[in-house]
């Protein structure tokens, strides 16, 4: 199931519309922004599972700025950066700041879809783990109350027993 909600950010309309079409065809829910400021506005308004953003964009906010904004808003948003040139330094810096991945332009759509599928699988696993923990917490809380009641009762009976023993021995 492709259940991810993705924000595509790029100042080049051709790239945006190509990515939007391919990702929608693959079943993802897509929103788009053509600059960093618009992207940050959208990120602050609703939750995205993935933000796919160009690194170099005109205006005050580039891909790095979008990454930082996304990181601040939610730990659960994965950010993939698209870099126009083979710049490992930029990519490393972005990964250090919390980017999940980076892709080089021109974007190979098959490669992108593979990476999104991995993120989607990971999200499903994380949700399953969360569900299991939730179930465990509820079970544990119920068990704890039962055990605590028994614990107090046993302590009360032990006290009584030792009192009776004392009386008997006297």
């Amino acid at each position: 199931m492709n259940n991810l909600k993705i924000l595509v950010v790029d100042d080049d309309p051709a790239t945006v519309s190509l990515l939007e079409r391919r990702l929608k065809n693959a079943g993802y829910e897509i929103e788009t922004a053509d600059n960093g400021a618009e992207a940050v506005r959208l990120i602050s308004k609703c939750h995205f599972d993935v933000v796919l953003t160009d690194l170099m964009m005109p205006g005050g906010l580039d891909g790095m700025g979008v990454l930082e904004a996304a990181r601040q808003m939610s730990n659960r948003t994965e950010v993939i950066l698209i870099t126009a040139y083979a710049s490992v330094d930029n990519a490393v810096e972005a990964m250090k700041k919390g980017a999940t991945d980076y892709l080089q332009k021109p974007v190979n759509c098959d490669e992108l879809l593979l990476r999104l599928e991995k993120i989607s699988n990971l999200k499903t696993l994380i949700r399953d783990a969360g569900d299991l923990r939730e179930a465990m917490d509820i079970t544990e809380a119920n068990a704890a109350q039962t055990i605590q009641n028994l614990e107090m009762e046993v302590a009360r009976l032990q006290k009584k027993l030792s009192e009776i023993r004392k009386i008997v021995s006297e």
Partner: protein
Amino acid sequence: MSCEITPDEFRIISKYVCDITGIHLDQGKEYLIETRLGGLLKEYGCSSYSELQHKAGTDPDKSLERKIIDAITTNETLFFRDTAPFELLQHKILPDLIDLRAAGSSGLFPIPIRIWSAACSTGQEIYSIAVVLKELLPDPKKYNIRLLGTDISDAAIAQASYGRYNKFEIERGLSQDRLHKYFTPYGDMWKIRDEIRAMVSFKKMNLIQPFDGLGKFDIVFCRNVAIYFSRKDRERLFDKIARILEPDGYLIVGSTESLTGVYPGFEPKRYLRSIFYQLK
């Protein structure tokens, strides 16, 4: 090379694990050995678990033994795990303890508060305790606070000591308010602030060995550790805890653990949703 474990092999390796950690693995826990130690089997080029055990036992610098300990111990923990014990600490134990100690003190010296998180794993419990103290005591100079976290796993102690947590660890149990108050972003991770870090010290320690030189404590958290031990080791553990606890000290165990019938020296007492133990 197969990772599938035979009954003989399981007996050998689980005895070894129990000897070095106290963790008691019953039959039916073969999968735990396979999933947690299977990687080391490959890494050390061993064809069987008995070979791995032999290698670990004869390894002069004990690095393999440490790796086995890191791999086999369960580090499931979170900030403010099961909120009840922290409410207990904040609303009952600390106020009572401070009243008691203040009444008995000349006022010239700071009041000692010594808390030990036995099997602290990656530090979440003892840091949660530090946060409670920080929020409860407006004037920390009036107190002589000693917070100690110990664990058998080098890897767990190292992470606890760094005080760095990834986004999955940090999300669990911590409110946004406390997250921003007590942590700073550190690359893709979060780091505990120095003021909290400085309150806590960490030490590697194996709970099945003697507690030499540990000192006395007012409060001991020993939650969800004894559950992995055999009955005998459990009795010994709580006996040792009884000896390092102040006569009016407090012991907190896991919410589903029970001490009556395991160690008779403690008496359970109830406060709201939790139970704590004091020496009889």
